[in-house]
Structures are given as structure tokens and as C-alpha cells.
């Protein structure tokens, strides 16, 4: 029981601390701009959860963020930082639009949608697989490679659209006639007018699949083992390079499928820059969601509310305030995670052992490389940590 409580406190405290800090910074910014925080927050809530259109837009934005958030979270679980969700999303959406355009208007919806889904997965997967392969084969930093690939892939897509398939006078492709996904408004009239569409249900299903994969399958288990302690996993018979490559591929696939939300669910065409910012927001979503699929869905709703709410309060304060708050949340979570862990360790440990400052031990259960556990300077500490972290060493094959 105590372990479960520690675990929950450790997962939930840092995001809460971060949200409080963000609220304080938000208040300061609102006051600088000469408005009353109460008014702004009230209007923000009314403009999002308070009416059908606003709520639908929140759902629509949360859909894309769930996919990019899951993509980043899956990477972090494997100890990898996928900063490339931005271009993987674009590439997935682009390929889905391309396949959608290639199919005749009469194609059965089931066939057309599955073909586009597959295309989006391939589009994102290819872009994700490159850094994964380079990391596994050459040890190239996936952080740098994904950042650089963002620029390369987006420039390439811009070139293809601008030079070959755009509708003149615009930056988008012609409209896809096969494979459009129905809006949620078609089933639930309460969403009328908003962009919310059935991709949201796909996002929830995907979150469930990711949970099952991570916590109930052998490859998912290997992935988490590699994220916690690559050396220990290697010793336990896991082929670390292969797991890295697979994790980046899957991460790209997840982000790529997110492209469907815009391309099949909303506008029915690919447009230059349609997902700008979603990839980076995905990092915030994964962090606040503590890299857990359920947490990711909740965090996606939170950030979607903020981003839609920014439009609702734009008359009072600049909508850019939300960009500032997002950044503050990320910095605060990243800073609070190690601090909370240390503080909890200090209160739990019997005094006198003198380990309060380092906080290794059972805390390693939730510490992939993304959120560095400060290394101990004592030899043997790494093995100790791996043994403490409660994952049994996999069967040898």
C-alpha cells in the first residue's frame, strides 16, 4: 500500500505544483496587462467547456495532442526523446491525403479510411524510424536528429506541395473525396459547428492500445526496461538497439496517425503547416501526463482547453499568454519531478541512513532517462538501482 501511495504522489504532485506555478505566472501576466485574473479565467472556461462549439473545439484540439503526446510518452518510456512529432504528424497527414486523393470518390468508406490510416502510419513511421535506426546503429543522438529532421521533412513536404500538387493561390492540396471521417456533430448534435470528429474516438482507442502494449505485452515490457536501465536490460537479454529502433518507429506511427484528425476529419486536404506546434505541445502533454496513456489523455484535454481558451480571452489579454504558460508548465514539471522525488524520499526513509539526498531506490520505478535520477557517486549504485526497481529480469531465451 505504501508503495502505491508513494507512486501516486510521485506521479501527481509535480504536475500539480507546476499548474500552481503556471497559475501564479498567468495572474502576473494578466495583471501586467491591466485585467482582472478572475474575469479572464471565467471567460476562458465559458469559451471552452461552457458552450457546445468551444467544447467541440477542445475535443478537436485534444485529439491531435493525444496522438503527439502518446508519441512522445512512448519514446520517453524507452528512454528516448522524440522531438520530431511535429514533422511525423505532418508527414502522416500528407501521405494520408495523397492516398485519399488517389482513390476514386466511390470507394467504400471502410476501405478508404483503412487505406488512409495505413498511409498516415507509414508516413509518420518512416520519419520516426530514421532517427531510431541512426541511434541503434551509430549511437547518433535522437534529440538532435529528430530536430534536424523536422526542418528537412517540412521543407521537403512544402516543396512537393508547392511545386506539384497545390490548388493554385493556396498552400493546400485538392480536397480528398474518399475516406472522410464523420464529424461528431453528425451523431451528437451538441457538437454542431465544431471541428470535433470521430478521430477523437480513434485517439481514445489508441491510448488504450498503447497502455496494453506498454504494460501487458512482452515487447512493451522490454521497452520500459530499456528506458529504466539500458545496461541492466542488455544484461537481462534485451537487444537495446533493436528496442530503440522499434520505439522510435512506433512513436512516429502514433504521431503520424494524428495527422488524420485534420486531413480526414476536418479540412479534407493537406495544408502546409497544419499541425504547427502540436509536436512541441505533445512534449508538454507527455510530461504533465507523466508518460502514462490515461495521463496523456487528461493532459491533452488540459492543453487543448488552454489553447482554445486563449482564443476566447484574446479580447482581454493577448492569446500568446498561453504559450508562456505552456512553457512555464514544462519547465516547472521538469524541475519539480526530481525535487518532489527527493522530498518524498527524505520523508519516507528512516533517518540516519543518509540516502535522503540521492533518492535512488524504489523511486526508480518512474524514472526513465527523460527525467534524470541524479546518479550516485558510489560504485555499484547502478546495479543496486536496477535491482531495486522491481522489474524482474526477463527469462533468458
Amino acid at each position, binding site marked *: 500500500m505504501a508503495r502505491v501511495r508513494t507512486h501516486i504522489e510521485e506521479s501527481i504532485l509535480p504536475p500539480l505544483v507546476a499548474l500552481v506555478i503556471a497559475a501564479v505566472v498567468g495572474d502576473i501576466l494578466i495583471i501586467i496587462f491591466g485585467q482582472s485574473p478572475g474575469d479572464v479565467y471565467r471567460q476562458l472556461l465559458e469559451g471552452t467547456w461552457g458552450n457546445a462549439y468551444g467544447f467541440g473545439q477542445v475535443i478537436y484540439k485534444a485529439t491531435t495532442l493525444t496522438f503527439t503526446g502518446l508519441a512522445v510518452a512512448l519514446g520517453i518510456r524507452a528512454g528516448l526523446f522524440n522531438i520530431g512529432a511535429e514533422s511525423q504528424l505532418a508527414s502522416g497527414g500528407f501521405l494520408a491525403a495523397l492516398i485519399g486523393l488517389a482513390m476514386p470518390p466511390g470507394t467504400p468508406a471502410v476501405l478508404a479510411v483503412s487505406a488512409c490510416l495505413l498511409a498516415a502510419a507509414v508516413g509518420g513511421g518512416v520519419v520516426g524510424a530514421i532517427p531510431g535506426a541512426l541511434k541503434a546503429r*551509430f549511437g547518433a543522438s535522437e534529440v538532435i536528429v529528430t530536430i534536424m529532421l523536422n526542418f528537412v521533412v517540412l521543407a521537403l513536404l512544402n516543396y512537393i506541395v508547392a511545386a506539384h500538387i497545390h490548388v493554385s493561390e493556396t498552400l493546400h492540396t485538392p480536397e480528398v473525396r474518399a475516406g472522410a471521417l464523420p464529424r461528431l456533430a453528425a451523431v451528437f448534435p451538441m457538437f454542431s459547428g465544431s471541428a470535433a470528429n470521430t478521430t477523437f474516438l480513434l485517439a481514445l482507442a489508441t491510448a488504450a492500445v498503447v497502455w496494453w502494449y506498454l504494460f501487458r505485452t512482452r515487447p512493451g515490457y522490454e521497452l520500459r526496461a530499456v528506458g529504466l536501465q539500458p545496461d541492466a536490460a542488455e544484461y537481462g537479454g534485451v537487444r537495446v538497439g533493436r528496442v530503440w529502433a522499434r520505439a522510435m518507429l512506433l512513436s512516429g506511427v502514433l504521431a503520424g496517425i494524428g495527422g488524420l484528425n485534420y486531413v480526414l476529419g476536418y479540412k479534407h486536404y493537406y495544408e502546409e503547416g497544419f499541425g504547427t506546434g502540436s509536436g512541441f505541445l505533445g512534449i508538454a502533454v507527455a510530461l504533465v501526463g507523466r508518460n502514462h496513456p490515461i495521463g496523456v489523455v487528461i493532459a491533452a484535454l488540459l492543453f487543448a482547453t488552454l489553447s482554445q481558451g486563449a482564443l476566447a480571452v484574446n479580447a482581454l489579454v493577448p492569446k500568446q499568454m498561453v504559450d*508562456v504558460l505552456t512553457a512555464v508548465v514544462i519547465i516547472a514539471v521538469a524541475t519539480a519531478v526530481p525535487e518532489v522525488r527527493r522530498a518524498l524520499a527524505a520523508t519516507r526513509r528512516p533517518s540516519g541512513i543518509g540516502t535522503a539526498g540521492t533518492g535512488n531506490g524504489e523511486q526508480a520505478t518512474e524514472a526513465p532517462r527523460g527525467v534524470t535520477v541524479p546518479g550516485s557517486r558510489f560504485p555499484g549504485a547502478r546495479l543496486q538501482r536496477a535491482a531495486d526497481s522491481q522489474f524482474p529480469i526477463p527469462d533468458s531465451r
Partner: protein
Amino acid sequence: MMAFLIQTLRIATPYLFAAAGGIISERAGIIALTLEGFMLTGAFCAALGSYYAGSPWFGILAGVAGGLLAALLHALATIRYRADQVVVGIAMNLLAVGVTRFFLRLAFDSSSNSPRVPGFGGGQVGSGVLSSLANPLVWFGILCMVAVGWILYRTPFGLRVRAAGEKPEAALSVGVPVRRIRWLAVALSGASAALAGAYLALDQHQFTDGMTAGRGFIALAAVIFGKWDPKRVTIACLLFAAAETMQIRLQSLQLVPSQFVEMIPYVLTIVALAGVVGRAVQPAALGKAVD
């Protein structure tokens, strides 16, 4: 030919400033993903300072102050609190975008650009190629890189910076204050990258939203492609700038689509990391927190 060289130098200047900062930071073990954000902050503060004080020199001072402030926040999170450098680095860039936009609206009531501010040189981009050399920052850019080379390899501080980035435990054990060295290195990188931003704002006589447009990442690409060595990084900056200049000059001929020229620095960096031609190996303790 002369015009080509001068234009290359002009385009390379912000890369040189930012990359100089990137070298110091990364050699001390702190990942320099933040160059873009520091640049943007520097550009905005420079425009602000120049506008209110009426002199571009005050603009430079204000820009450096802004860059330092951003750098200190980054150092506080990553060094004092040992937060993950990649996460905070990405967030610092988002923060710079948000903060500059917010204060752009607050100060100038605009969501796109500041009014015209006092700056250096002729003003409009591309006008008066020779007059651009009157911009003192063009010369500082080259000096900045020379200074970094000298600091890194010829001073005790540089030796400590390299120790902090390669073997912080060893450095600690002989009494080098690793965390303080890292604080200083991050501060220097913030100031230097801010100068890159100040150059952009004062050269164009205004701040425009998102005016750095990925230049901080090109500088980071140059740092990696140049293998964290000031001489090679300088060459990388000039190379990237020359490619851009070539593209601008040959635009009318339509030989290569501009998007492919844009890709050059990024593709070269990926190739360098994969080690096809002489692998780029980063400082051993890059990204690692120190107790």
C-alpha cells in the same frame, strides 16, 4: 565576387555569434538547444532598448541583458535543480516565442512587428552591400569566435569548461567548481546568442515576430557539424551562409528549389552524427547533471 563574400559574411554573422555561445555551453556539458530562444529574446530586447533609448548601442546592451536573463533561468532549472536539459531547452524556446509576442503586444500593440528602431547600416535587406560593413556587429561576430577559441584552449577557465563537459567527476575531485563553471558557460552562451539576435533586429531596424526563423538551430547544426571546435565551426557557419547566399543570388535561375538549400545544414548535421565522414563525437558529459 566581393559582393558575394560580403553578403555571405552578413548572413554568417548571427550564426557565428550563436555558434560561439553554443560551443561554450556544450563544451561545459549543457546542451545548447536554447540558442534559438536566447536569440529571439536578444532580438526583442535589442529592439526595445534601441527604441526607447534611441541608440543601437543601448539596443545591444538591452539585448545582452535579455539573453543573460533567459540564460540564468535555463541555468537555474538545469544546473541548480538538475532538471532535464532537453525538456527545459525546448521549453525555453517556447517561452521566448510566447514572451516576445506577449510583450510585443504590450509595448507596441502589434502582433507582427515593432516600429522602426535606430539600428546599424542601410536598413532594408540587400541594400547597400558595402555599407553593411559599417555595422560593427559584423566584425564582432568574427572576433567572438576567435575569442571563444582563445578562451577554450588558452585560459584556465577554458580548461575548466572542457573538464566540466568531459569528466565532471574528475574535475570535482580536484576542486574545480563544476556547477559554477557551467553557470558561467550558460551565461556566456546566452549573451553571445543574444548578440546574434541583436544583430538581426538592428540590421533590419525592427523586431518581427519569430524573426530568428530557425537560425539558432542552424547555429547548433554548425556546432555539431564543426565537431565543437571553434575553427571548424567557423568554417561550417561560413559554408552554410555561402549556400544561402548562392541560393538568394541564383533565385532567378531556378536551378535548385529553395527548400533544398534550406535543408543543407540539417542534412549535413545528420550525416555528421551518423559518422559517414569522420563521426562527430559530443563532449562526454553533455546533458548530464552534476550533484
